[in-house]
């Protein structure tokens, strides 16, 4: 078996993985648009689109048709693009990383794309909210795994982890890794809670929803405080390639909490105890307007961005502390 150090470095798997990550993120945003505008059932059949093969559906009818159709069909096309990148990734990884576990990882990614596509199709065919929920959770999980692949196949990882020439491992400390992994996990839990809130079923008891909301808020506050605390705790980690994701997270988490509050106001209005202020008392919820759609979807997409930054941080730190992964 080839040793990691003997492999000649090739950037193509990393390049394709980066493209896959970009497409996946756009796909997550498009999926968010689908949910925000309740366009999930805009196309009743799957894998066809109104009887056409998905790729042969008339461009004019799609691009200049109703918004719901534009978003839903576009989401499907983006999904197939992600699938194509995942196939390319498998091929290139098998050629360029033989004798490592990277091809297996690429296959897992491809399997997840197929699984996610199937979930999306089944969600349409069965019109099932539970599956919509699962679909909404698997997307960000897949995105985080693609990001992990990007990190492991990157030049930074090669230089600092695989070849072990990078300094700074001594600055990291295993305690930080535990905290970072915990916060990564908690970010995912928060994403699951958000997905549950977004895919609420009409038959759900009104008593369940407030509990979900309060839990989502509590976890958001906890995550924000913990992220800032972690940022302070790791302030001496500079120069290791680990610091920038934490710097970004300390800002993004605040933006995300602000977006969460805006999302609530955009969907349900200001809390009643603010109604002696003119801005709250006069606010009318602008349902399904572009303004509401983009702000609510941005909150959802920012959740995946947070997951991405934690993933970069954790995978890099694990590499420095525990040696190269999947080699």
């Amino acid at each position, binding site marked *: 078996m080839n040793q990691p150090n003997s492999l000649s470095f090739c950037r193509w798997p990393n390049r394709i993985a980066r493209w896959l990550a970009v497409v996946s993120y756009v796909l997550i945003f498009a999926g968010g648009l689908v949910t925000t505008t309740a366009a999930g059932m805009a196309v009743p059949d799957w894998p066809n689109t109104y009887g056409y093969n998905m790729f042969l559906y008339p461009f004019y009818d799609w691009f200049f048709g*109703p918004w719901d159709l534009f978003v839903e069909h576009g989401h499907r096309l983006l999904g197939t693009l992600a699938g194509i990148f995942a196939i390319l990734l498998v091929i290139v990884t098998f050629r360029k990383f033989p004798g490592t576990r990277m091809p297996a990882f690429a296959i897992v990614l491809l399997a997840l794309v197929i699984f996610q596509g199937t979930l999306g199709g089944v969600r349409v065919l069965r*019109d*099932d909210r539970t599956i919509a929920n699962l679909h909404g959770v698997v997307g960000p999980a897949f995105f985080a795994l693609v990001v992990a692949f990007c990190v492991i196949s990157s030049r930074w990882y090669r230089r600092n982890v695989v070849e072990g020439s990078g300094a700074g491992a001594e600055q990291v400390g295993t305690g930080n890794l535990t905290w970072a992994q915990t916060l990564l996990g908690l970010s995912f839990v928060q994403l699951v809670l958000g997905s549950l809130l977004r895919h609420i079923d*009409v038959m759900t*008891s009104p008593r369940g929803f407030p509990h979900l909301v309060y839990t989502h808020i509590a976890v958001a506050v906890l995550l924000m405080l913990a992220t800032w605390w972690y940022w302070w705790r790791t302030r001496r980690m500079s120069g290791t390639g680990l610091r920038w994701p934490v710097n970004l997270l300390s800002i993004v988490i605040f933006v995300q909490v602000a977006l969460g509050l805006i999302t609530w106001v955009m969907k349900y209005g200001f809390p009643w105890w603010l109604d002696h202020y003119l801005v709250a008392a006069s606010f009318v919820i602008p349902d399904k307007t572009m303004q509401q759609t983009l702000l609510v979807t941005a909150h959802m997409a920012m959740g995946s961005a947070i997951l991405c930054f934690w993933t970069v941080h954790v995978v890099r730190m694990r590499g420095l502390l525990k040696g190269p992964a999947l080699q």
Partner: protein
Amino acid sequence: MFVESLKCGFNVAEVVKTFGIFVIDSKLLTSSATGKLSHDKALAMQSTKTMTFKKKLIRKFCAGLGMLSLLIAAGCRPSTGLEFPANEVELLKLQRHKYGPNEELDSKYKDQVAGVMAALFGTPDEPAFPFPANDASPFRALVSLGNLNASAGPVASVKDGKENLGLYRKHCANCHGLAGDGAGPVALTLNPYPRDFRLGKFKFKSTPLRVPPTDEDLVRVIRHGIPGTGMPAFPNMPPDEMEAIVDYVKYLAIRGEVERRLWDEVTSLAGEPLAGIPGSLDTAQTREAFRKVLVSDPTSPISDILFDDVLPRWVERDARVSAVPTAPAGVEPNDAEFNSLAGVGKELFLGKANCIQCHELPGHSATQAVNYDDWTNDWVKTPGIDVEDKRTFREFLKAGALPPRLLRPRNLTLPVYRGGDESRDLYLRIKNGIEGTPMPSSVSLNDEEIWALVAFVRSMPLK
């Protein structure tokens, strides 16, 4: 959600087995991290296992995902076949009013009422309407079955996305509930609560108290929303979809009123109005046949409820719209006479009209007692209920009632008027009151006095 997924029947053991390989891997690394194994040794152990691990990983992961996909596709139930939930709160209230402490209505009558309601109004997926047999009847124009079908059922699109279905579930049901009971999933997080249509009461309308709103009133609320509440504006909704939703709101209100009247009759006459009605009407065909029987028998109590009580109110509403006289000079803030008319209005506000009883003014406190709206008063005035003591109404909460909340009279020092901010709207609010709330109609005020009050209300935010 994941617990619900298990209902789909996928093999949990297989999924655990599939993902278990990651657990094994992480255990190995954890052992390394905690010092039980040296780091190099742990890596060496892993590298010797790489080939078998890779094969296992691919095989198990793909098998697990494939199985999960297939079983979800095969085993899950679609969200169709829904029934409207019965108005349990109304039944509980009526039983408390009419029956002894340990008495309750025979459950066979509950099934019969559910059957009658399904026959008359169909289901959330397949709506029906008790149109009279006579084609010339004015009741026939109340709602269009095509509009009801467009609003009912799950969200869907046809004709290349150009025709949308399931409009009520798409836009309204999360707040107003499937049956229009105002108890949708998000209802408890909103204040005021979403409207419960089943009482047939609507706040902001151009008709007097106890007369339903016109279609234009409903369109206006949906199009522009209600400021400071959870009711959104739908500025981009196409007119045909708006019309369909308005018809569906009327349908839910009429259905709710009929159900309430039916429960009232049945609990008063110990089930007598249901004599001869079959206990089971579980197909669309039997329901339709039974509906024809019900609507064509003028002697049946159900026919009385429909055609002599509930539907006539809805048919007459257009003729009952309150006329708004031309506003005199001084009502608008830029009129020269505005201040003098507002001064007259202030005298009325503090005196004859007694608005100060509820609406505070700077320097004048409200004297109002604790108040609830009609949607709460409807059941909290049941014998034995003390709104201060949750134990006395826990049973109602279990039946679906939302916890009582005190009303907050409008703060008139802000230029925000939920029913519309034109002088005409303010005139109608003062003239007709606000249905379902303690805001009364002003029977003792003439038009000049109402306009003076409008001027004063308009002047308050300017001070």
